[in-house]
């Protein structure tokens, strides 16, 4: 039972990873490369020029994208197995709720304070500070997602529309408050604001698509085997 979910999650992650790897190869790699060359002096290597060939970077990044989606898919399968009974909706809808929660927890909430940045960005904080802040924001995101689901479940008997409003309240409140309160920690002195906005939209949409694809694929795989029991199978006679 657990392993069915885990395997299904990994499969869904693999499908999303293929799509995301393709996206990395076709869109993100060339774009990041271009932005890097368009600005003077941005490199992570000590003296200007990069120590690693660009083709290697591109290939490793595609692999990284695939691994990332696989990882998210595996986590998705495990968490869905445990939390499925507590999630609102029925059938595949539960998966989409979980995917939205995951996206909110590990991406959206941290981005409200530490937005995605293009090469050449100037950071106000040191790397270690950003890691600590990121970890805190992930925890906060998890709390927001959990309170949203709990609010929905509590109000649900009194009407679904009311429950949707109750469930959306923590998310909307957090997004508004965090984006108003947080100072600008990242700036792009050499890039136009439009380009930075487009770059951020690309990052947000691509990460959101990974989650959407994982949930959709997982739901599809689940529908293909509809008659499974949720408890451990009583010893089945094997031929």
């Amino acid at each position, binding site marked *: *039972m*657990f*392993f069915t979910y*885990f395997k299904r999650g990994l499969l869904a992650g693999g499908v999303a990873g293929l799509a995301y790897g393709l996206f*990395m190869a076709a869109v*993100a*790699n060339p*774009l*990041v*490369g271009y932005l890097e060359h368009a600005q003077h002096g941005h490199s*992570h*290597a000590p003296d200007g020029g*990069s*120590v*690693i060939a660009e083709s*290697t*970077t*591109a290939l*490793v*990044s*595609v692999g*990284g*994208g695939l*691994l*990332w989606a*696989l*990882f998210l898919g*595996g*986590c998705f399968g*495990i968490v869905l*197995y*445990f*939390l*499925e*009974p*507590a999630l609102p909706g*029925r059938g595949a809808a539960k998966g989409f709720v979980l995917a939205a929660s995951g996206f909110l927890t590990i*991406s959206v909430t*941290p981005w409200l304070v*530490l*937005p*995605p*940045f*293009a*090469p050449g960005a100037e950071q106000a904080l040191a*790397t270690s500070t*950003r*890691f600590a*802040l*990121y970890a805190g924001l992930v925890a906060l995101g998890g709390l927001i997602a959990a309170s949203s689901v709990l609010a929905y479940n509590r109000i649900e008997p009194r009407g679904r529309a009311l429950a949707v409003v109750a469930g959306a309240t923590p998310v909307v409140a957090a997004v508004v408050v965090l984006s108003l309160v947080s100072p600008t920690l990242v700036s792009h002195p050499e890039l136009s604001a439009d380009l930075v906005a487009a770059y*951020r939209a*690309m*990052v*947000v949409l*691509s*990460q959101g698509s990974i989650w959407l694809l994982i949930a959709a694929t997982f739901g599809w795989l689940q529908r293909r085997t509809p008659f499974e*029991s*949720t*408890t*451990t199978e009583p010893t089945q006679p094997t031929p």
Partner: protein
Amino acid sequence: MTPESDTVADRIDTARAEIAPTTALGIFGFGAAITFTLLLLQEPLAHESLHNFRHAAGIVCH
């Protein structure tokens, strides 16, 4: 039993019976290794080659 009628506690009990501790540790260790490599590793070579990915995925890294 329909998929709707069990609880989170049931799922945890089922998983306890189903997963050996070593398997759980293995899965967890593998997940931790991926997280570390993709998100945290600052060693220059690995860091530099994952650079595009980290920018594109919006990872708070460097």
